[in-house]
């Protein structure tokens, strides 16, 4: 899964004519170098991610004992069969919709924001970016509690509306409150990659486009947007995935009136202590997410 439009380098491109042997050697050297650069990450991810992942994959075929222990025997596919019951599918679809809406809202606001930051002078740019991140170095729970105050029926929004002669607004414990909380929580995940993509755009291309199309909007649509696509794709994935699994925000701001896939998985691992089913659910979710991201990448690549 690579950001759209990237082309791994196949070898040295030199102006001097090269013999096939030299080229082969160059490619081999290049391959070795790439391998060495990727080695620390490969080592780390295999040791601290792939191997543990295999362990829970094994668990997903095991059985829950009556005390909630995972018995590593009597291997079966029961947990996977349960994934296809209507109850689980409804929970999953509901979460998919919520995550898609969150991602769309984040993109809608973050893109112009990142564009604005990217077109400032370097110092202003850094400052603006830092000020995006600072709120997120406070504590997550405390931030969410603050939102409860803001969205409550006694909160500032509601009071403002009442002072203007309107009805009290109560957003707390509604779906809108969940969306506000999710967008708030994951916005930086969208802003950072978008900014990173827009900041180093070749603006001469935009200028050329303006000369050609004369229309700023067309220039944006035909040049800026496609060029910033890697940022859009990376940002969307970084927002979509955590909002799909989010469970604290929906509980605190939305009142947990519906079950999402995130809280369902957590309740399997904790309250029900049903690790086999929890593991199977996790793999089901990961599989769908992989499909979704692959599809998204391909769709993203087509717009180029």
């Amino acid at each position: 899964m690579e950001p759209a439009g990237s082309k791994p380098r196949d070898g040295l491109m030199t102006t001097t004519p090269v013999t096939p042997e030299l080229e082969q050697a160059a490619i081999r050297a290049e391959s070795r170098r790439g391998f060495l650069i990727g080695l620390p990450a490969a080592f780390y991810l295999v040791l601290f991610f792939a191997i543990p992942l295999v362990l829970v994959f094994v668990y997903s075929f095991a059985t829950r004992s009556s005390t909630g222990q995972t018995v590593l025997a009597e291997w079966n596919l029961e947990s996977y069969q349960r994934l296809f019951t209507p109850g689980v599918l409804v929970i999953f679809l509901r979460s998919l919709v919520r995550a898609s809406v969150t991602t769309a809202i984040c993109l809608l606001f973050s893109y112009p924001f990142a564009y604005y930051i990217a077109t400032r002078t370097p110092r202003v740019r850094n400052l603006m970016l830092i000020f995006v991140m600072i709120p997120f170095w406070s504590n997550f729970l405390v931030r969410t509690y603050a939102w409860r105050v803001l969205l409550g029926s006694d909160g500032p929004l509601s009071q403002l509306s009442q002072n203007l002669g309107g009805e009290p607004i109560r957003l707390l414990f509604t779906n809108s409150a969940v969306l506000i909380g999710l967008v708030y929580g994951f916005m930086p995940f969208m802003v950072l990659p978008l900014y990173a993509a827009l900041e180093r755009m070749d603006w001469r291309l935009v200028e050329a486009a303006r000369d050609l199309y004369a229309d700023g909007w067309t220039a944006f649509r035909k040049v800026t947007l496609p060029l910033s696509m890697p940022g859009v794709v990376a940002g969307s994935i970084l927002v979509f995935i955590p909002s799909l699994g989010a469970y604290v925000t929906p509980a605190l701001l939305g009142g947990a009136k519906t079950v999402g896939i995130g809280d369902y998985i957590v309740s399997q691992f904790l309250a029900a202590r049903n690790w086999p089913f929890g593991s199977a659910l996790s793999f089901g979710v990961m599989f769908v997410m992989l499909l979704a991201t692959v599809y998204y990448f391909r769709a993203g690549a087509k717009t180029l």
Partner: protein
Amino acid sequence: MNEGTAPRGMVDRVLALNAWVLYIFFYAPILVLIFFSFNDNNNVAIWTQASFRWYGEMFQNDNVTSALRNSLIVAFFSTIVSTVIGTLLAIALERYRFRGRGALDGLAYLPIIIPDVTMAVMLLIFFFQAFGILDDLFGVRLSTGLLTITLAHIAFSISFVAVVVRARLAQLDESLEEAAADLYAGRWQAFRRVTLPLIAPGVAGGALLALTLSLDDVVVTSFVSGSGSTTLPVYVFGLVRRGVTPLINAVSTVMLVASMVLVGISLGFQRGAEARGQRVADPQALDLEMVVTD
């Protein structure tokens, strides 16, 4: 340079307005959070009167100060390590073709899509299995603690760093690096003087993400923690059973102020460096022309 194509007139004003609205959105809960840190009441959401009570209690409460210290230690090391490894990963995947690249590519994305509680459970199983094996083989007795928390945080941060850096790399004109490689004899030099400054904003963004992820993680940490390693988010989530006091608001406020001071200092340093005429690690200061004439 960008300024030439900066949006003008109406568009610029709309963009500026959007930016202001977003900053208000980002900081509204932060103001509420700070406001309630001065609440004298035991209960965070019921305002009685203003006081510095919780700031006093914060420095006397050993549990909070040690949890804060643990959080900062973990965040510091996990951010540095995951930024380095994640950046290398991004470069390898984006710029090179080698055997196993496809597998590494897939593996690099899995930590992002895995539900956090699953990651928590699997790391818990893994660490204790690994400790058992180490004990059997070498007689070394290890237990969970700050080290395992840091290792776990690095494991999920690497991928986030790599995604952000790759988005940046994907866009860079490779001819710049090639030109630099031709000009400088060493690849390391080309990397250090051209590629690194060019991807610096992506690396910084990735590091910021890693820091944020580490400072907020509850689920994975609460599974892989051990004796003496309670972090601040775990402590705060545990408070829920007793009702959350403004103490945590006070801690958050102090962290916010401290991070703003740090940002201020580093900006001051940058300005000082510029004043002394040195080149700063700012991508804008490096243009191809400068590289060529260097």
